[in-house]
């Protein structure tokens, strides 16, 4: 099954009853899958007139109490930022998928990781954050979708699934056995018509600056709770490693292949793979820096996550970087060569 289709199936099984989308490569398989699957399951599918309309339909469905999702790729994701900011301000749950492609501008339709900063810094206007989940395989993608909906409802906040063109389009075996029926979250904020209760209003306009400031701090405390409770990462051969690669998503998948080759040559390389890009697994990186001095960041961009690695290290250690922007996908052989070159520079430096 393709990653895009697996994502769609997992969403339906996780109780997503509303999908709104606008065509853009490389995520069309998801929209097409949902066009058939969601109505079959009794839900709502609309091919919207734009990404802006799609995210606002999600907002409407969400405020009406439904599990709603939209998806896009980089240029379309820029258009959705307005709605994501409103979802965050209104404290409404939603799942938004970005199958990233080369950018900026039109870029191309090849896999890339160049929307990291947009995803992890809020993306739209105002002081807000979204949880960003970055799966690295089709199975992990399917597993992460129900989690995304649960986190969105538990925190009443939009959650971003950040994939890329490769993850969306590659075919892998996938099982949906782990997906349980959706949990019930209290929905005392949704609009249903004021039957037997006072009327409700959902808004983000707070003219009173004190009220707006209070609202911002309230959101901030929620983001702090996310930082405390929702950090997820994978450690791969870290314990004896002399150099740690930090990579995520499909990039980490390629790194794994490279590390397997390097381990055969007895190069002690390990990897920390952030699964939540926000909140970022800064603590484990900082702790690892007590023992390991060298961190190698690989991204399919000119370097965006490297900023978070730097912040995590707080000046400790040495950071190496290799980036392939523009939709280029390096092979494990290419990466293993680059990593080993940096590894030997490091040991050379150690001897001096």
């Amino acid at each position, binding site marked *: 099954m393709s990653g895009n289709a697996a994502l769609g199936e997992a969403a339906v099984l996780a109780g997503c009853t509303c999908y709104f989308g606008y065509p853009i490569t490389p995520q069309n398989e998801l929209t097409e899958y949902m066009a058939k699957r969601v109505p079959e399951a009794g839900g709502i599918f*609309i091919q919207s007139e734009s990404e802006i309309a799609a995210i*606002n339909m999600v907002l*409407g469905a969400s405020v009406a*109490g*439904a599990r709603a999702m939209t998806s896009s790729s980089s240029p379309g994701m820029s258009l959705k930022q307005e709605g994501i900011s409103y979802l965050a301000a209104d404290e409404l749950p939603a799942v938004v998928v970005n199958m990233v492609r080369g950018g900026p501008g039109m870029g191309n339709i090849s896999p890339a990781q160049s929307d990291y900063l947009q995803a992890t810094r809020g993306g739209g206007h105002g002081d807000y954050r979204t949880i960003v989940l970055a799966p690295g395989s089709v199975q992990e993608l399917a597993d992460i979708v129900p989690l995304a909906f649960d986190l969105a409802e538990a925190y009443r906040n939009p959650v971003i699934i950040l994939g890329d063109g490769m993850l969306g389009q590659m075919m892998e075996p996938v099982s949906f056995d782990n997906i349980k029926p959706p949990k019930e979250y209290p929905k005392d904020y949704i609009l249903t018509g004021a*039957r*037997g209760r006072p009327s409700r209003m*959902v808004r983000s306009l707070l003219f009173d600056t004190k009220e707006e400031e209070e609202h911002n701090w309230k959101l901030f405390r929620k983001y702090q709770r996310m930082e405390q409770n929702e950090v997820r990462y994978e450690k791969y051969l870290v314990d004896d490693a002399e150099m740690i690669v930090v990579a995520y998503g499909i990039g980490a998948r390629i790194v794994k292949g490279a590390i397997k080759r390097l381990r055969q040559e007895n190069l002690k390389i390990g990897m920390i793979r952030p699964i939540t890009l926000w909140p970022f697994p800064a603590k484990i990186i900082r702790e690892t820096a007590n023992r390991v001095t060298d961190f190698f960041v690989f991204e399919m961009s000119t370097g965006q996550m490297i900023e978070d690695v730097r912040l995590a290290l707080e000046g400790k250690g040495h950071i190496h970087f290799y980036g392939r922007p523009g939709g280029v996908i390096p092979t494990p052989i290419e990466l293993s060569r680059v990593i080993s070159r940096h590894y030997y520079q490091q040991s050379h430096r150690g001897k001096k």
Partner: protein
Amino acid sequence: MKQVYARPKSLKPAHFHYCPGCGHGIIGRLIVEVIDEMDLREKAICVAPAGCGMLVYNYFDIDTLESAHGRGAAVATGIKRVRPENLVFSYQGDGDLAAIGTAEGFHAANRGEPITIIFVNNGVYGMTGGQMAPTTLSEQVTTTTPSGRNAATAGHPVRICEVFAVLDGTTYLERVAVNKPAAIIKAKKTIAKAFRNQLKGNGFSLVEILSPCPTNWKMSPIDSCRWIDDVMAKQFPLGVIKDVP
């Protein structure tokens, strides 16, 4: 003693923030009167816009969402699809619907979404201080058309009802005004008809309301009401534009 006039049940005991002579207060009142008379308070969900109409949620005692500027029809679509039993209407101004939100309104209309748009046309961006709107008349002076709207550089006034009328998804479009008692009574009946149209599941409906904005028109309230008949209604003719029962 017989009570002949009272605050509608669906109107909160708040003071309107609108300027003297503004039509929003009348229109808001008409909407809640219709909601009360049709017993829809427990069914109604309002989508408020950005602009002068935004604060209707401070006045309407019904479930209300404030949407981003221009996105009302898309948000209302999401709500109505999830809750088809509810009465879902958006309240939008001319900048909101006829400029930034044209795509959302147009395509909701084209899909025949069974929602109602209450479209307040006062020919200017009121809340931001009286800039040109898509509905500003030719030669009309605004803060961004200081020598009058020039069609050669700023285009022509947009007639939304007529634009939407060509879409097969629309079933009821009517233009009314709130500049004199007879017109206000007519406007109320029109809103009620649009809501009934929606509750019958009869596709998309829109009521366009020509509404005075004395502050930004730089006229007295009385002159503003006259101007609607004498000038504005020439560009935006009142009456039923489309009615497919």
